[in-house]
């Protein structure tokens, strides 16, 4: 018995962001909605600061600004005042209330408070949606999924069946959202993407100061989620507890397709073939051409990546999708490190990567101190994950391909795509060229032709 195994080790440099951050992203991506944190002002400042650093866009997050007395007497008064202030300032149609550690720890009864608020608000007042997101329970990715589920639970209505498709993409970058919308349009499918922060968190230059809450998924579309032809939800880990698609399946019988994130040829094929079935049309030529060129580029570069070892870190859904993509191109994801905890990552990879699991270490609920320690022993050729891995990259002299959130030491986080054949192409090129650059720059003779 290892005596150390019973000692609780504190988290050192967590490989995840706070849970309400994900919820705030979701509420930012709903039209006429305002994200609202129930807790102290530091939490909203921290989250705004990270979202601003990543997206480089104005981000508005309201807060109930807990003080000492709120902690003692409860936050009802602050919530009440805050909600009314938000209504006065923004005239929103929805307020998305995410709780913080503090609010959850003192045991705030949010459903009851929402009920009280709803009773006093006028008929045409904003919809109030709440989601429980203490950071000691889950990651920013969990907060994201839970917020989508909370919105759908509150809003989705029964009604006559339509042809539209619900798309719960999980946390992807704005350019990937735009690409998804293009894909559905090209298939002739009407899609409700929830959330859609492709404008709110990646807008162009403004003509005048805006409150920046108009863009995003329309509330009417969310109401009609229960009448959709089907739901597509990107999730590799099959976590029903945070699945909005599960809510719709259970309540309205809406068929649910839980697909892996469409990264890499095979995972994209699964997605595109599903769209082909749902739309009863062939896959449009534009995408088959992208697919063919993507495979052509795989072939062109296959010797540069074969057997190359990668360390992946981030949310489990992303780590799973990336690991399967890397194996498809001949790389070995020697360490698959999820910052969140699903408990299913190992099993999912074993199922999709039979026979290669011997060379793959899977960990969940880990931190950067552990990842770096393991990575040092595994001697990988590349790291793939968010900017928080830069310190490790520098310590180990292993190049880092930035993907995920936060990315605060490069520009264009909103455009670091991975979704679809097109996004995969960009990611693939970045991975291969990062490997080539490192080899070339560290080669004593300096290759000029490769």
């Amino acid at each position, binding site marked *: 018995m290892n005596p150390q195994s019973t000692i609780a080790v504190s988290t050192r440099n967590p490989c995840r962001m706070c849970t309400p951050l994900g919820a705030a992203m979701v509420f930012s991506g709903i039209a006429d909605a305002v994200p609202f944190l129930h807790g102290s002002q530091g939490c909203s400042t921290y989250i705004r600061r990270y979202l*601003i650093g990543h997206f480089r866009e*104005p981000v508005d997050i309201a807060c109930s600004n807990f003080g000492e007395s709120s902690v003692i007497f409860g936050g009802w008064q602050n919530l009440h005042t805050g909600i009314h202030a938000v209504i006065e300032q923004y005239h929103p149609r929805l307020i998305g209330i995410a709780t913080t550690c503090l609010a959850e720890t003192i045991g705030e009864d949010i459903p009851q408070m929402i009920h009280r608020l709803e009773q006093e608000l006028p008929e045409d007042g904003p919809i109030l949606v709440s989601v429980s997101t203490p950071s000691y329970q889950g990651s920013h990715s969990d907060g994201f999924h839970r917020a989508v589920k909370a919105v759908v639970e509150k809003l989705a209505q029964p009604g006559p069946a339509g042809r539209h498709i619900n798309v719960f993409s999980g946390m992807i970058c704005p350019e990937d959202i735009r690409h998804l919308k293009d894909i559905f349009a090209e298939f002739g499918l009407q899609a409700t993407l929830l959330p859609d922060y492709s404008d709110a968190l990646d807008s162009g*230059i*403004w*003509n005048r*100061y805006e409150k920046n809450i108009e863009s995003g998924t329309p509330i009417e579309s969310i109401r009609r989620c229960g009448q959709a032809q089907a739901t597509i939800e990107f999730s590799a880990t099959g976590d029903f507890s945070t699945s909005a698609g599960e809510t719709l399946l259970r309540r309205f019988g809406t068929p649910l397709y839980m697909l892996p994130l469409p990264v890499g040829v095979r995972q994209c094929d699964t997605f595109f073939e599903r769209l082909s079935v749902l739309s009863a049309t062939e896959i449009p030529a534009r995408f088959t051409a992208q697919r063919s060129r993507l495979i052509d580029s795989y072939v062109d570069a296959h010797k540069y990546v074969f057997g190359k070892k990668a360390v992946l870190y981030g949310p489990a859904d992303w780590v799973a999708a990336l690991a399967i993509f890397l194996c498809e191109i001949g790389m070995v994801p020697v360490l698959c490190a999820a910052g969140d905890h699903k408990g299913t990552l190992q099993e999912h990879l074993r199922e999709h990567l039979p026979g290669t699991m011997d060379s793959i270490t899977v960990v969940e609920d880990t931190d950067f101190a552990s990842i770096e320690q393991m990575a040092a022993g595994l001697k990988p050729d590349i790291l793939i994950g968010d900017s928080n891995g830069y310190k490790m990259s520098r310590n180990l002299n292993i190049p880092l391909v930035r993907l995920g959130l936060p990315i605060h030491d490069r520009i264009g986080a909103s455009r670091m795509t991975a979704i679809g054949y097109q996004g995969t192409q960009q990611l693939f090129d970045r991975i291969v060229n990062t490997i080539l650059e490192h080899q070339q720059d560290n080669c004593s003779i300096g290759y000029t032709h490769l």
Partner: protein
Amino acid sequence: MVHLARHMQEKYGIPYIHVSYFGIQDMSRALYDVAEFFADNEVLERTQSLVRQEIQRVMPEINRYRQDLQGKKAGIYTGGAFKAFSLVDSLRLLGIQTAFVGSQTGGPEDYQRLEAFCDEGTIIVDDANIMELVRFAQETRIDLFIGGVKERPVAYKLGIGFCDHNHERKISLAGFEGMLNFSREVHATIMSPVWKLIDSRNRQAGRN
């Protein structure tokens, strides 16, 4: 910090003086104050010599920037009011006029002092929200906004140069070298040609 210093004086009798290291004026004053505290001629002379050297070192570059920046306008919004004085002063050295200045936590006394310290016409702002700041910025047609990191994207969206002053900065603003850093950054953000691309099509008012 002042609280801590006062406490140490009361409890242990350690004297303190109140200085600012931001801007050439304040930095020089701070060095002299320290030198004068010790009332030692040699220290004073060495201080004078140091200040002279440093000013000779940094001023040529600062003067070059001033040529580009003369007549530009800035808005300042800080956490505490204390920093605002140094910023107004440093901008003045660069030929930049402060169109409005304010802080989140300043008291009436601070604002009176600020009003006296600034040029005539400078608007003194007390605890404004972002929409009010935007209104001031657009009405006064500033070229530069100095605020916290979270105001940056709003300034950028509106086509206004920006410099942050808060604790997350990577490049120091303190001391003589800090004044050079500040001047370079202010010069870069105001003189960047990217704003012209916004003016040409998107800006409403006739600002150029």
